[in-house]
């Protein structure tokens, strides 16, 4: 008898269609970006079969390497097993790309499968100095060219920008660039210490707080571009100060975030754990979709050693951290890469991202009073 999973424990799946990337961004945390490992259609067929038994919409995020480096023919074979699920509204596709390979044919592909698109670009040309190819040539013009191609095909796109001490200074220029770029949403990731990227241009805490304050001020003057971080902080502040909490109630529904490698190995809690050194990474694999249904793997994954450790850390965050109601317990990958354990509380990433974000916005609002 088939069991329908009412709650699979995840609403997103990250799929790695290929390990290869045509860029060599200086801060990238992923190893093996020059190795050619492609996912096989057997892997996606196994995932699709398992998702038949999940009674909720699942978002499939294709994220490499560079996902489009798979090539259209190979990607078509990977995505086709999901078509039945897509036709009945059980899954939606998104792809995260560096934009450099986007062509008319890729645009047709994206439209055909109704994919959401996220492009990685860090701001104006000068801010993208570390986004380069393997010959050290800047990727900026090729990324912009890909974005223009999306626009020619009227494909909406979002942006993820990585911020470090290098591009955090001129927030007016940073924000204006994205306003003019035509993206529908901007998400900002603060550069992190993880995977291969263990020493880099990570902001100091004071710099991060100043960045968020300055960016909020730049944004507040003309807030016609949605910024993920400000959406979050405003929603949280309004919930925190609501006279009738029921009206402004929010629920945080954490996600186990299964990330599936080209070989079908499953890692949970954070895609960045795929970036660990091969031996280290094996410790995080909770199963392989070619050997066991994804839903069964995910049931067991809740008790995986590092899920248990992470739970200890989150519970401690709940008890000790005033920002807990905002962040919900910190990112698993940052805890691990910064300290070697998941059972910890505050990290540098907490300070530069969640805490500094809250404090920076508070600083800006204080000046608006």
């Amino acid at each position, binding site marked *: 008898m088939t069991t329908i999973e009412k709650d699979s424990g995840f609403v997103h799946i990250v799929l790695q269609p290929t390990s290869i990337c045509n860029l060599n961004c200086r801060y990238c945390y992923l190893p093996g970006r020059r190795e050619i490992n492609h996912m096989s259609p057997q892997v996606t067929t196994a995932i699709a079969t398992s998702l038949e038994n999940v009674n909720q919409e699942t978002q499939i995020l294709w994220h490499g390497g560079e996902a489009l480096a798979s090539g259209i023919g190979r990607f078509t074979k990977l995505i086709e097993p999901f078509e039945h699920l897509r036709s009945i509204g059980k899954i939606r596709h998104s792809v995260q790309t560096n934009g450099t390979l986007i062509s008319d044919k890729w645009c047709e592909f994206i439209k055909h499968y109704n994919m*959401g698109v996220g492009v990685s670009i860090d701001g104006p040309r000068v801010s993208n100095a570390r986004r380069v190819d393997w010959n050290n040539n800047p990727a900026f013009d090729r990324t912009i060219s890909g974005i223009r191609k999306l626009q020619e095909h009227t494909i909406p796109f979002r942006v993820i920008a990585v911020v470090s001490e290098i591009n955090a200074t001129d927030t007016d220029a940073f924000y204006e660039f994205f306003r003019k770029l035509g993206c529908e949403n901007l998400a900002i990731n603060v550069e992190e210490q993880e995977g291969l990227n263990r020493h880099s241009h990570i902001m100091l805490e004071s710099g991060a707080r100043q960045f968020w304050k300055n960016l909020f001020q730049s944004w507040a003057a003309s807030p*016609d571009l949605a910024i993920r971080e400000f959406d979050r902080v405003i*929603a949280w502040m*309004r919930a925190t100060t609501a006279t009738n909490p029921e009206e402004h109630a929010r629920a945080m529904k954490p996600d186990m975030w299964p990330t599936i490698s080209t070989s079908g190995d499953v890692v949970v809690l954070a895609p960045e754990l795929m970036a660990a050194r091969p031996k280290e990474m094996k410790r995080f694999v909770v199963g392989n979709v070619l050997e066991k249904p994804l839903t069964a793997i995910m049931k067991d994954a809740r008790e995986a050693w590092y899920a248990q450790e992470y739970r200890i850390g989150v519970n401690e965050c709940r008890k000790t951290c005033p920002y*807990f109601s905002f962040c919900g317990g*910190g990112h698993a990958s940052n805890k691990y890469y910064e300290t070697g354990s998941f059972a910890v509380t505050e990290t540098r990433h907490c300070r530069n991202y969640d805490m500094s974000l809250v404090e920076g916005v508070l600083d800006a*609002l204080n000046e608006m009073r």
Partner: protein
Amino acid sequence: MKQENRSSLEDRVTSVKPALDGFMEEKRPAVDVSNRQVLFLRPAEGKFDDTPWNGEWKNYTDR
């Protein structure tokens, strides 16, 4: 970062409420924060939705 306690943080948020409300009233048409779909949320960030908040952190294992 100085670790203010929880109520202190709530107090500080409450103190900027008028500025936030004023900003939202003036700019609200351009800042729709209702359940915006966000690409690539991190595991612990969760997702805002319309489900009533029951005052308890629901750990992923409780779901």
